[in-house]
Every structure is written in structure tokens, then in C-alpha cells.
């Protein structure tokens, strides 16, 4: 979900995704070592993201990921579920 959320901001390559997650979470969350790429490939196979080879900012060949409409739907529903869940947790905790 975090990965999808990060990609939602635009087309980016794997390292940029890892960086984005790291930065967005105020450096609290760090994508666990070794889990980013399997997650990306699973998302791609599920059709939530698509990929394309391009040239990076430092002129290297890099694989760029873009979210698909299916991915957007998935994240929307996931976010809904997540916010409902976290709201519920919050309510429980604040009593």
C-alpha cells in the first residue's frame, strides 16, 4: 500500500520509490531491506502498476513504474479500509 501510494505521485524508478517512502514517512518508515522489488513485481503482475524502461536523471537505463487505473482503484479502496480501520482504532484508543 505504501509502495502504491508512493507511485501515485508519478512515474518513478525503484530507488526513487524507496526514497519517497523514506522521506514521506519523515524518515520513520524505511522500506524493509529486500522487500521493495518483490513487492513491485507482484504489483506489476497483478496489474496495479505498469513498467517501462527509460533513462534516469544521471543518464542510466532504469526501469520506471507507473500506477494503472486498476492500481488507483485498489489504493482508493485500500485507503478507505485503512482510514476506517485507523479511525476505529483511534476511537477505541481514545475512550
Amino acid at each position, binding site marked *: 500500500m505504501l509502495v502504491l501510494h508512493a507511485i501515485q505521485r508519478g512515474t518513478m*524508478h*525503484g*530507488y526513487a520509490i*524507496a*526514497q519517497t517512502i*523514506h522521506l514521506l514517512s519523515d524518515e520513520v518508515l*524505511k*522500506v*524493509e*531491506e*529486500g*522487500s521493495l*522489488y*518483490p513487492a513491485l*513485481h*507482484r504489483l506489476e*503482475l497483478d496489474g496495479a502498476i505498469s513498467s517501462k*524502461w527509460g533513462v*534516469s536523471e*544521471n543518464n*542510466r*537505463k*532504469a*526501469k520506471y513504474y507507473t500506477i494503472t487505473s*486498476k492500481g488507483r482503484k485498489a489504493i482508493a479502496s485500500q485507503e478507505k479500509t485503512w482510514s476506517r480501520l485507523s479511525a476505529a482504532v483511534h476511537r477505541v484508543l481514545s475512550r
Partner: protein
Amino acid sequence: MRHFILKLVRRRRLERDLEAELRFHEEMASARDNPIRLGNRTRIKDEIRDAWRLQLIDTVWRDATHGIRQLWRNPAFAVAAVLTLALAIGATSAMFAVVERVVLNPLPYPKSDRLIQLDHSFPVLNLRSGIGMTAGLYYQYLDRGRALDGVAIFRTDEMTVTGGGEPERVRVTSATTTLFPVLQVQPAIGRWFTEQEGAAGAPQVALLSHALWMRRYGGDVGMLGRSVALNGVPTEIIGVMPASFAFPDSRIDAWINQQVTRATGFGLPFRFLGIARLRDGATVADARKELNSLIADLSQAYPGDPGVSGNIGNGKLTSSPMTLKEATVGDVERPLWILLASVVVVLLIACANVANLFMVRAEARQREIAVRRALGAGGTGIARLFVAESALLSIAAAFAGVALAWGALRLLVAYGPATLPRIEEIRLDSMTIAFTFVLTLLTTIAFGAIPLTRRAPLSAFLEGGRSTTAGRRRHRARQLLMGAQVALALVLLVSSGLMVRSFQKLRTLDPGFNAASALTFRIGLPNREYPSRAAAVAAHQAIIDRLSALPGVTAVSASSALPLQDGCFGNTVLVEGRVNPTGTIPPGARLCAVAGGYVETMGMRLLRGSSIDRGGVARGELIAIVNQAFADAFFPSRDPIGERVRSNAPPRSTPRPDGAGGLTWDGAPPWLTIVGVVSNTPAQALAEPHPTPMLFMPMSIAGGPDIPPIAMLGPNVATMTYVVRSATLPLVSAKDVRRAIDAVDANLALAQMQSLEEILDHASALMTFTMVLLIIAASLALMLGVIGIYGVVSYIVSQRTAEIGIRLALGAQPQRLTLMIVRQGGVVTLAGIMVGLIAALSGGQLIESLLYDVSPRDPAVFLATTVTLLGIAVLACWLPARRAARLNLTEVLHMD
């Protein structure tokens, strides 16, 4: 499915891309101060590969389970589709197995396409083949044939084997030592003949067939080196051939060393068959050219040899070699290809039916598909569902089909015509299974693709279920399939109709003898116990007397060969007082030796004169009876009775050694007086375009063990075929026959016990086989075609129910509605029939050679099959149409 294949292809690219991606990450990380590290590379790669694999399995599994669920929900559809396909796939696979073994791969020898049969012909005598070889020709070709890489000659005889069990009649091929180098086959155990064993005077040795070795000697390796007696001649067993070895055919039990010598010169008569291996690069045409020039040279090779001058004359002997494959399967190749084509036609019709079923379902499921699309399913995803369903059906059909083919082949091997070479070896092999697999793949693609070609825009799907008048375009494909089915079915119906007509004509053909209630068998007398013609004749007469005493037996006689059997003696015949112009060859006939009463026992019709009776045989009268064909050929404008004829023998001044045993002969065959004319009987095949001239002589004046073949008297009477006629069925029992013969000599072996009916059946076996299989194919085609027509019309009616309802409500006559629907189906049927008729008329010459006395454009057959098909097709249209016209108005209006 497509996904699956693409994945496999893409696998390597995926791996390369993954490696590049991870390296990029590492490069990026190494350029930063606070890098986000990649982690364990190997573990990442493994995990990603797992994801790929899971996805793949998951997809296939999901599609398969979905397919099974779909089919389960509609078992009638699934069963109908699987059964239809299984029948067609089974029939096609079984037929392919036959073609593969018999036609494509009939000879189990290395480089068998280089093997040729050496045959000769006398075109001026209208003897186009089957003359064979002499020892002199063998040496001529062996020494000087540059196009040939090895030559062998051989002959096949029946012999009695004694020692190590009951005396048994066996078929023995006696071949020059060069045979096995030509065939390039090694014995399974033991050794092949040595060169010395091919020279005159060497001891006789034998190789056993695998079948005889197992049957008679229980597969005992200890038989090697042991001696048995073949026709009384001690013979050492030196080896056993492999089970697959069947030369010249599968009925041969043993092979012995034929001894030949150059001393016999040209070596008449033509009593051998020849085989050779072509040198690399040489063609059959090269060989023919070279051998003909060698024949022209024979007079130099054998100067003054009367056989050469008599037979070669002015180059009349002609070499007519053909490939061994053609010689072996020439007759059956075409029927088998036609049968394979006909089952493929059945398969096409079955495919059309199943495709129709699929189309109906695809349309019925338009709403489901529309919903899936609306939910975001891609085109490939939907296509996968259809392909998965058709794949499941095809696989199920393939398994059922293979089982059917297995059963069909068992039946075929058991009941098929023995004239099919290698028939006993036909089985489901890997090649056939592979063929079935490819068929299955093709059918899968065919059905899976149909719904895809009919992909319409989403809006059409959504309204599809509610339209009240079906679009014409949507029926186009269905009607095309229906028309094609009708056309294909008609072609098969016409072919099988033509075969049935031929068969009827063949079986009503007068064979010239009475085939009812007569038992036949062959007895061969060993030379050692019966060394002379007189001894053999006495033994045969004693056996005939014993057999005549059996209860229920009305007549017994014997001949050197029955109709439709080999064993007669073919030679040219001279007429007394008729001068044969020098350089020409007198006409030929087949000479048979008979016991008294043969004509009466066989039920042949005596047209004129008298027959040969027992007294005539006993006295050794110099008489003969001839058949009508002989009379027509030799005495076209005269009564042959009273004329004298004799077998033609080469003139010779000095006695010379015979190749076989050093016997000498000096003298001409005697003149025989013709005393009677009988009806023609078929000599080799039932439907002979020209009946063979035949001459029957008393067995007491024919050839015998003490008379060398070169004497040309007639067939050797050591072996005779008996005919035992009973007044009624059942035939006399084999046990009674055996007892009667035991009373004369318990060591005699019986062979080929069969009724005259069976001989007739055997002669038409190939035609029966072709006809029965074509009838099966045509019935299947008709049945499937009718189901197809019925299905299409029913479907169109169901689609138009609302429309019909409206018409009825507006006051349309039900009869006219029925007529309208029948007419629609009828137009398609007629179009199919037209196409089918054109195809059948233009393809007629393909089966012309299989027919007997029936034109491939026989109007009666065409009319009958067309009317039958049209009638059944109209009925198949009318049944659903009538249902439509009887619709209840209120029901229709409530339907949607």
C-alpha cells in the same frame, strides 16, 4: 493459455531486466551518503521468481477451474461436445496409425527406400509384371549391374517340417546368401548364411522366424545347431530372425539357403523373385535402363542358350523394377489415404458441430461477458476463459479418442484384411499419440478462437439479450458451417455409395464355381517318403478315397491350385499343327493338375465335352480340359474339342543338370487332347479384366518330385489342395479330416484349412474393408451433419421466437411460418449439396481405381445419396420449424 506461452518465451528477458534493475539500484545507492540498501540479492531474485511462477500457476489454475465450473453447469453441452470430438479424434488417430505403419513406414529395413523389386514383363504378350527372375539373370545383374548395390533372388514354398513335435506345414523362403546383405538385417540370434552355403552341394541350413521359434520350439536357444527335417531334408538351424522381420511377407516361417550355379546358364524357368538395393544416387529409372541393356547382352553372356533365344528374342523380355515399397503397399496405399481423408472429413464435421455449440454458448453468455467487461476484464482475460474451456473439452475428447482408437485398432488388427502389410504390427505408438496431441491442439485453437472473432462492442453485448429480431449477420457464420457440413457429408455418402455398388457387383459376380459348403486344405507330400510322381498320385488318391467315405461328404477332389490361389504353372502353350512364327512367343496359359471329378466337386460348369474322371487319372490319359478363356484365346473360331495342345519347353539336344539336384531331362512334353470346356474361374483376383486362359490335366501326367521343373510338364503334384464338399452345412470337421489322412500317413501336415466361401471373402477383403470403413465414416458424417442442421435451425427458431410470436399475433398462417423456416434451412442445405456434388464429381477419379464396374459418376448413386441427404436435412429443418409454428401466443409474449 497465450499468457502462459508468452511467459515461457519471455522468461529470459525477465531475468535480464531484473538483473539490470537491481544493478541500477545499487549504483544509485552507492552514490548517496545515506543509501537505502538493496538487501540480499539472491533472496530478492528468488522471491520475485516465485511471484512470477505463482502468477502463472494461479492463472492456469483459475482458468481451468472456471472452465470446469462452466462445463459442469452445462453437462449436456460438455458431453455432447466431448463425445462428438472423441469419436472423430479416435477415428482419425486409428486411421493415422494404420497409414503410418502400412503406407508411410511399411518396410522395417535400413534405408528401405533404396530397395527395389526386380521383376520382368513381356509387353508383347500383355504380361506386364510377375514374370520374376532366373538364375542366369541373377548372375548377369550381380556381375554387371552398376546401379545396384547387391542383388538377391528367392522363392517361397510350402514344406513339411518334421522332428521336434507334430509334422507341420510351414512356408519357407529359399534365398541366395546375398539376401540379408541387401536387406541389411542381422539375425536376432545366430548367424546368416555363409557364401559357401550358397554353392551347389552345400548342406541345407535354416533361419527360423521369431514366430515359428516361439510357437514350435518355445523360444529355446538350444535349437541353434540342432537339425530338423524340411521335406525330409536334414537342415541345421543356424539362427532366428527378429520378430519384425517379415520378408517377403509376414507368413514366412523360415529361410533356407538357395543354391544357385552358373552351370545352368540362363536357367529357365522364371521361378525366382528378385530384390536389389540401389546404389547411392541411382534411381529406379537408371536401374531399369541399365538392366534392359544387360538383358540385350544376355545372348553374349549365355551364347547358344535356347532359353535366351526363346525368351529374349527381339528384346521382348523387359525389366520392370519398382520400389519394394510400391510393390508391397501399391494396392493398399490409395484406399488407406482415402480412408484417412474421409475420417478427417468426419473430424471437420465434428469440429463444425462443436464450433456451433460454442457459438451458441458464446451468444447465450453475452450478458455474462458484458458484465465481466464492465468490471474491467480485458479482452485477453475473456479469451482465456473460452480457450480454457475448449482446451478442457479437447483434452477430455483426446483421452476418450485415444481409448477409442486403441479399441478400434484391436478390432482392425483382428478383422482387417490380411493383405495389409504389417497389419499385425499396427498399434498406438508415440507417433500416433503425437498426432492426436497435435489434432487436439488444433481443435482447441479452432473453438477457442470462435468467440473471439465475434467480439462486438460493449453496447451490442448489453442489448444483445433483448433484441427481438436476430441480426442476419450473426447467422451467417452458422449457416456457412451448416452448408460445409452438408457438402462434406454428401462427398462421403457418395463415396461409400459407390463402394457399396461395387461390392454388390463384385459379390454377385459369378465366380464360375459353387462356393457353398465346401472345405479346402493343402497337403504337401515330403519328397523322401514320396520320391516319385507315381507315389504322390497314389497317396493323393488314397486320401481322396478315405475322405469320400466320411459321413455327409458328397464329393472330394484336389487340384494343384484352387481359383484365387497361387500354385498353378504358367507357361506358353503350343497347338498341334500350328506353326509358331520364329521370333514370336506363343500365347500363355496357366496349367493345373487335378484329381478325378475336380470340375464336378468344385461346381464348375462343363460347357462342352466331358471332364476328367478318376479312371482317366488312373490310366494317365493324355487329355486336358480348358476354360472358356483358353478356348477363346487359342481357338477363337473353332471348337477346341479334339484339338491337341502341349506345354512349351525349350528345345534341347543334350541333357543338362538342373540347378536343384543334378537331374537331367531330355524330351518334349506330350500332346494333350482337349476333351472339354469349362466356365472361367478367377485366377488371382475376383475382378479380373481379362479372364486367365487355364488348362486342367490329370495329376498323373503333370510334374512331380522325380521330374525336373525344366521338363515343363505341369505343376508338381507333391502339393495338392483338396476340396471336400458336403451336402449341407456344417462342413466336415477338421478332426474327421485329420483322422482320414492319418489312416494314409500320420506324418502328413494340413495347411490353410478354409472353406471356399472364405477364399471368396478373402479375395474381396480389401474392398470389404474399405467399404465398411467408408460406410462408418459416411454414417458418422451424416449423423453429425443432421445434428448440426437440427441444432442451427433450432437455435435460429429460438432466437426468433419473439418475432414468430408477433407474426402469429398478426394472423400469419402457422403452415406458412413452418415453410418459411424450412425454406431458410433448405436454401443452405441446397447450397451445401451443390458444393458437395461438384466436389464429388471432380474428385471421382481419386476413387475410380477402388471401384468395380461402377462409374465414379454413377448417376444412380449420386441421385440416391443426394435425395437421402436432402430428405433427412429437410426433416432436420422441419422438426424445429413445426415447433415454432405451434408456439402458444401468450407464452411468447410473456417470455421476455
